[in-house]
């Protein structure tokens, strides 16, 4: 399969990328591992691509006090081997695609693509990450909670570029984890759950839980979080709290040939419980 024709421009800086995009009405190309396959299937025909993959300062993982900055062009392989970010991130990055995909696919490309079955959006939401966005008029920061809006949709404007994500540094007393039920063919998430759990004296003092794969956009599991906080982190309590997801899934749960909406609903508490339990073990 062959992609349709397009014009190609290579940007050397964020400013140049934004200007090129505007001038040619193009689309940004990073690792290309979300975009090129859909172009080959002729499901996308952007007409013009602005290659941002050589903007070196967008690549890398930088601890910065109590946060860690992950450049948009950081590959999944780099995240997978990073010891500086909360455990859930490398754990999820190792589950993306396969080793070759992880060598090319980038955090920014993945996040901006906002595939509901993707792993990183769920983890970033649970971690309370913020997305760094640059536009012509300057930069802004948007919390992951607000960033993912719908199926393949985010708050990113056409004239904006996602330059990186910022996540909290690992903190003593807090553990994070990601659990996923993969589609047996694509290995994307049928359901993915991420948790960040703070524990003191065996009890949960703070919880942030997100779920993906089954809704148009990754979603915080507020009811589960509320049910966790203050509880002893026993298997039974975790399971009971995870079950609270049932009421907050609404009518938008998706189904396909691999997993019906009902099956996904049934898997949501299972994956949440697994993520929470692992996170507690790491806290």
């Amino acid at each position, binding site marked *: 399969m062959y992609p349709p024709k397009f014009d190609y421009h290579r940007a050397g800086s964020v400013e140049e990328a934004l200007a090129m995009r505007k001038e040619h009405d193009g689309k940004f190309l990073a690792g290309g591992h979300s975009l090129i396959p859909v172009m080959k299937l002729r499901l996308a025909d952007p007409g013009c691509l602005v290659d941002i993959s050589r903007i070196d300062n967008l690549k890398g993982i930088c601890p910065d006090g109590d946060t860690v900055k992950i450049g948009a062009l950081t590959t999944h392989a780099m995240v997978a081997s990073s010891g500086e970010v909360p455990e859930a991130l490398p754990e999820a990055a190792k589950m993306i*695609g396969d080793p070759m995909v992880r*060598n090319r696919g980038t955090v920014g490309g993945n996040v901006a693509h906002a595939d509901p079955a993707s792993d990183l959006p769920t983890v970033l939401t649970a971690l309370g990450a913020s997305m760094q966005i640059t536009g012509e008029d300057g930069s802004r920061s948007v919390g992951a909670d607000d960033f993912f809006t719908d199926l393949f949709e985010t708050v990113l404007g056409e004239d904006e570029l996602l330059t990186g994500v910022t996540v909290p540094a690992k903190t003593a007393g807090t553990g994070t984890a990601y659990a996923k039920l993969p589609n047996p063919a694509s290995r994307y998430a049928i359901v993915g759950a991420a948790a960040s759990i703070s524990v003191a004296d065996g009890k949960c003092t703070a919880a942030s839980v997100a779920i993906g794969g089954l809704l148009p956009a990754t979603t915080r599991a507020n009811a589960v979080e509320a049910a966790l906080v203050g509880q002893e982190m026993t298997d039974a309590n975790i399971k009971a709290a995870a079950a609270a997801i049932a009421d907050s899934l609404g009518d938008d749960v998706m189904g396909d040939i691999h997993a019906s909406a009902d099956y996904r609903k049934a898997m949501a508490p299972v994956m949440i419980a697994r993520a929470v339990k692992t996170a507690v073990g790491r806290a």
Partner: protein
Amino acid sequence: MKVSITVNGKAYTKDVEPRTLLTDFVREHIGLTGTNIGCDTSQCGACTVHMDGMAVKACTVLAVQADGSDVTTIEGLASGGELHPMQNAFWNEHGLQCGYCTPGMIMSSVKLVENNPDITEDEIRHGLEGNICRCTGYQNIIRSIQAGAAAMGGGD
């Protein structure tokens, strides 16, 4: 657009359409047909090559993205007339049948082992999640990679 890519140690400069895939660059533009194409959704791994020292799926890389890169294909793996230990291992352990997935499988395996010299069977099985073989049931591919890892100097 003009791109310059070093393939198996030889520099090539070619004028290509921006949409040219790296698979087509190596197969059609410079005639190295060892890199096979088995799917169109980046699943099968038959097209795996090394780009700047990393295994990548050449069907999902544009030639323009590889401009200035150093690419190794299956044809460039042997050196000085000597097969790479992983190539020998696939031959010795009957790690292939129809041979179509084999170039990608070998290129992928070399990096799996280079990155993890003491790789376990479980790690190999998971490490091959991006390489599909329909013939072997993977049994002898696993044995080949274990033998290849030993020959490459890792393991015990």
